[in-house]
């Protein structure tokens, strides 16, 4: 992005050059943490078909951050407060039954628009803030402090630990909620717990990628991996790998060009998704058909 004539195309020299700047080292550390956390959460989000809820959660961080700046506290607190509260609100909405979906989504859409409108109001009340509105919405990979990286790492470790505890029943409840409920898996509690974890993950990622682009890191690597393999463990590993690769590539390319990192990360991730879809559709028909009928082997929980 700055200061350099261009890449030497020798990866070792280029990396040494990039990492001679502390802000690039911090950007890579933060990007790595966020890519791993968002990848794992995104895998469950795609599995549970909660893209809309995930997207709304990721946008709710914007009024949080804007409000925090307005009252004079650090934006991080605003992100966490609003994303976690938003997760609880969405969890309290009537869960989609057959025919109940249309109302749930109308409410979610309205909440999302109102949250963004509130963010805009806070920004308007806080005069002269219009330049940082772009940083809030589209992220600022290049101004991350070492303290922020530590905070990100701690929250990510806690979230992943919590997810590891509930991961197995959560996967069961996501794939077949009725059978899971019959087996005494607490489906409802798991759903709330997952949304709260998703809120924490989006609050984390928002601080780096901006509220508008978190969703890309959540949905794209996971969707790519699930198009490529039907086996949960492999898909999860692939998701994290894809997330890391696109984040690192995006940061490196953005370093050498005047364009923002969000554009490169989303473009690489989308290219991967399109390639995965192409691979899936050129596979022998019976494999594609069988993977469409059961996206996951249902024996997973037992």
């Amino acid at each position, binding site marked *: 992005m700055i200061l350099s004539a261009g890449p030497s195309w020798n990866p070792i020299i280029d990396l040494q050059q990039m990492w001679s700047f502390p802000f690039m080292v911090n950007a890579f550390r933060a990007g790595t943490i966020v890519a791993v956390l968002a990848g794992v959460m995104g895998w469950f989000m*795609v599995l549970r*078909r909660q*893209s*809309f809820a995930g*997207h709304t959660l990721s*946008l709710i961080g914007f009024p949080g951050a804007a409000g925090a700046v307005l009252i004079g506290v650090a934006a991080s607190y605003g992100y966490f407060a609003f994303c976690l509260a938003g997760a609880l609100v969405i969890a309290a909405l009537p869960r989609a039954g057959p*025919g*109940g*979906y*249309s*109302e749930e*989504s*109308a*409410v*979610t*859409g*309205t*909440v*999302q*628009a*109102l949250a*963004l*409108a*509130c963010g*805009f*109001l806070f920004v*308007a*009340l806080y005069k002269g803030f*219009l*330049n940082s*509105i*772009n940083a809030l*919405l*589209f992220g600022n990979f290049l101004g991350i402090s070492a303290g922020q990286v530590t905070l990100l790492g701690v929250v990510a470790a806690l979230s992943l630990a919590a997810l590891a505890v509930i991961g197995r029943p959560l996967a069961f409840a996501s794939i077949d909620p009725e059978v899971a409920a019959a087996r005494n898996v607490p489906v409802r509690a798991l759903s709330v717990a997952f949304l709260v974890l998703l809120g924490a993950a989006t609050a984390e990622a928002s601080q780096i990628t901006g509220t*508008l*682009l978190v*969703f*890309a890191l959540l*949905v*794209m690597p996971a*969707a790519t991996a699930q198009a490529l393999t039907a086996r949960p463990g492999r898909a999860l590993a692939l998701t994290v790998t894809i997330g890391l690769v696109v984040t690192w590539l995006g940061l490196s390319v953005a370093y050498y060009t*005047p*364009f*923002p990192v*969000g*554009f*490169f*990360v*989303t*473009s690489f*991730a*989308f290219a991967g*998704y399109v390639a995965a879809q192409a691979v899936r559709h050129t596979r022998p028909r019976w494999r594609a058909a069988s993977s469409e009928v059961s996206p996951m082997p249902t024996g997973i929980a037992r």
Partner: protein
Amino acid sequence: MIWPSFLVNALLAGTAIAAAAGLVGYFMVLRAQVFTGDALSHVAFTGALAALALGVDERLGLFAATIGVGVALGALGGRGRADDVVIGNVFAWILGLGVFFLTLYTTNNSAGNGNAGVNVLFGSIFGLNRSEAITAVIVAVLIAAGMVTIARPLLFASIDNAVATARGIPVRMLGYVFLALVGAAAAEASQAVGALLLLGLLAAPAGTAQRLTTRPYSALLLSAGLAVGEVWAGLTLSYTVPALPPSFAILAVATGVYALVLLRARARWHPLRR
């Protein structure tokens, strides 16, 4: 009292846009395609900024992007409606493109255009001039006419897709036409409340109307009427309290009305609830 011309323009455009958004929004909620509307709100941002960056009329980019992507989303999902994950991937990338165009635009026009992105995202209805307002009205009338024309078969197809197909209704085609109309309505609405907030204008009146009546045509008209009333109330509020941006005021009124109706319904459970 003499009304300032910006307020007249805003009311003129706002009324027509709200009516179109209310009509389209009703079917969007009925067909559970709110997420598509969400996606198109981000596409509108990219379309407008691409047009600005390339130096053509902003509205051209807006309409081309939303209608084009709307129809493409239908094609991607097959059967005239797209899968959530596909939609999510497509619009996340398109938003990334929008950031690219924003950078391109702001670096090429350093002086005075720093707010372009903000205006596209959050709307500037008080900044419309007379000819822009009249164009918005004409387009809104066309959208409303299109919606009314396909309302009956679309209602049938939305409520019972299989039976409608068996009766020879071109369900797939209707799906595409509807998505094109959603795209046009999204482009219109983003001129009123901005790309990020248009989802509220599409979803809130429609959700409210569906709560208030179970009769489809009444709900359709009610949705349009509510949207118009909410825009009027929002514009008035914003005009009397200048600290409130108009798009926030409109969204706040629309959400408030929806919340009241939901709370009332919760207090008094309705046997015909969907």
